[in-house]
């Protein structure tokens, strides 16, 4: 018979997607996870991954074709060596770790005169560019929960990528002025009929890469009450007329947009157009737009970089001063043009997520990978730095997709004798500062 010595329930902040649900309850039994309440499959998986056997466990340094195990100090020393001898190192990732670690990363990049970029540059970077070009009318998610009577998901499928978004913040949530989904309407705009589209009051199927035209046409219909003279072939006017009617009836509307807008066509033009449309709509009623950020702390990475340097991502310190020019200083641009000679990835997997044409350029580059899990990047790396899982085994601060800061909590004590991202980076920073 098993005797239960110790069973406690801890409140957790889910470190998976931009929803950053903070109502997750984990029951621990003798320090082991017994059950997880309120989490979606993604969050559940992430929290359980702490006990997974597929982890980076050892500090490894490449030697010939093999990797040999070293102590943490040796690994830090070697990391500092590589970083200091690099001509233009790029420090990339940062979206799956705490703001505290991101801050240290920026300091390291500044001392090294390297480049600091986060995963924003390949997901919502275009939204940040559009924000700089024309500004974003936005709000926190609670405003949607309490007020929104029309919700539009554009190029985003929350059921697959942000499973609890509907229930906690939007369509199925219960708020002060809109008590249930019977009073809310939902429009989904996508290139294919997604699972969310099946639940929508109206689904508008658009042709791939035609979003800019669709938004412009919708804008024209809303502004002038009629479709434009010259109709774009890709756009279904009837659909948009119906959507415009719903939009004009709404008291409080929101557009959630995902990679379906940021990654297609000329991403930032899509968003310029969308923001412009939202500004127009504010003449009739209240409208806001919120990006559906992927990683749980990618918003934090933008915020930390913005207040530390003035720029949200792709910050190049190589001349001593921060310089920001997406199209020249993002990881994709730099790797493609062979501008960097060292890639340090922290809590990300550039080799597994960047375009093939860019990944092929990293052959021959020195790579340092800091990650709790094995990835194509750690496989190819010259130095592997294992860490604890931020948000499960260690705490910190993270920002939700709408910019609300929420503390991450260490849910369980790790059985592994490893350091957190923050502690490891602090060691690296100390080593570098001392050597300089």
């Amino acid at each position, binding site marked *: 018979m098993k005797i239960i010595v110790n069973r406690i329930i801890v409140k957790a902040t889910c470190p998976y997607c931009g929803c950053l649900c903070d109502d997750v309850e984990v029951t621990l039994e003798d320090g082991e996870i017994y059950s997880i309440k309120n989490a979606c499959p993604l969050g559940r998986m992430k929290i359980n991954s702490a006990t997974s056997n597929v*982890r980076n466990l050892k500090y490894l340094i490449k030697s010939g074709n093999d990797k040999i195990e070293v102590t943490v100090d040796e690994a830090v020393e070697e990391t500092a060596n590589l970083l200091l001898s690099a001509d233009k190192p790029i420090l990339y990732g940062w979206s799956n770790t705490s703001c505290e670690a991101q801050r240290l990363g920026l300091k390291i990049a500044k001392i090294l005169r390297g480049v600091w970029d986060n995963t924003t540059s390949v997901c919502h970077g*275009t939204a940040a560019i559009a924000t700089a070009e024309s500004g974003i009318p936005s709000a926190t998610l609670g405003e949607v929960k309490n007020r929104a009577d029309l919700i539009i998901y554009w190029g985003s499928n929350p059921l697959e990528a942000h499973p609890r978004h509907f229930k906690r913040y939007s369509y199925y949530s219960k708020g002060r002025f809109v008590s249930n989904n019977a009073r809310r309407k939902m429009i989904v705009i996508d290139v294919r009929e997604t699972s969310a589209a099946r639940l929508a009051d109206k689904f508008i199927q658009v042709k791939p890469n035609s979003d800019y035209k669709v938004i412009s046409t919708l804008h024209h219909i809303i502004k002038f009450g009629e479709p434009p003279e010259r109709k774009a072939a890709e756009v279904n006017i009837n659909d948009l007329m119906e959507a415009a009617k719903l939009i004009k009836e709404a008291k409080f509307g929101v557009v959630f947009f995902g990679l379906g807008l940021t990654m297609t066509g000329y991403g930032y033009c899509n968003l310029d157009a969308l923001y412009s449309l939202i500004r127009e709509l504010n003449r009739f009623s209240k409208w806001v737009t919120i990006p559906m950020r992927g990683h749980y702390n990618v918003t934090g990475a933008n915020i930390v970089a913005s207040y530390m340097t003035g720029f949200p991502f792709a910050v190049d310190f190589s001349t001593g001063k921060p310089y920001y020019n997406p199209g020249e200083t993002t990881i994709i641009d730099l790797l493609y043009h062979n501008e960097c000679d060292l890639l340090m990835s922290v809590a990300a997997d550039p080799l597994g997520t960047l375009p093939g044409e860019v990944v092929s350029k990293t052959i021959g580059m020195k790579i340092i990978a800091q990650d709790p899990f094995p990835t194509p990047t750690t496989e190819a790396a010259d130095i592997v730095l294992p860490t604890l899982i931020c948000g499960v085994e260690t705490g910190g601060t993270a920002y939700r997709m709408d910019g609300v800061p929420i503390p991450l909590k260490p849910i369980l004590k790790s059985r592994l004798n490893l350091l957190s991202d923050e502690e490891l980076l602090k060691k690296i920073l100390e080593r570098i500062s001392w050597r300089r």
Partner: protein
Amino acid sequence: MKAILITARSIRQGELIEGLKHLMSTELNFCDLNPEDMLKIDVKNGDKVVLRRDNSEIFLKARCNPTLPLGLVYVIVHPEVNKLIPYNKSLRGMMPGKGLEIEIEKIP
């Protein structure tokens, strides 16, 4: 056949992304096609197809998905499919991961 490639996420992909990436190549190696398109290139569920763009190509299994519009190929995003994605300078660092023109063919 020429087609437009859309990459997107799924719950299963999301589950694998942290820590179980090695399972992606076996679990997520298929691409969704409209049944009419499948007829056009003469494949059945589970048949192997090749997706090509310029010099890069990847091999996946075809899967029928009647909700997809004609001419669209939907692949769950994973390291393998990224190999098809090019660099485009005027996108300011963004990867053109959706709406990419590719060539799809049956492997005999």
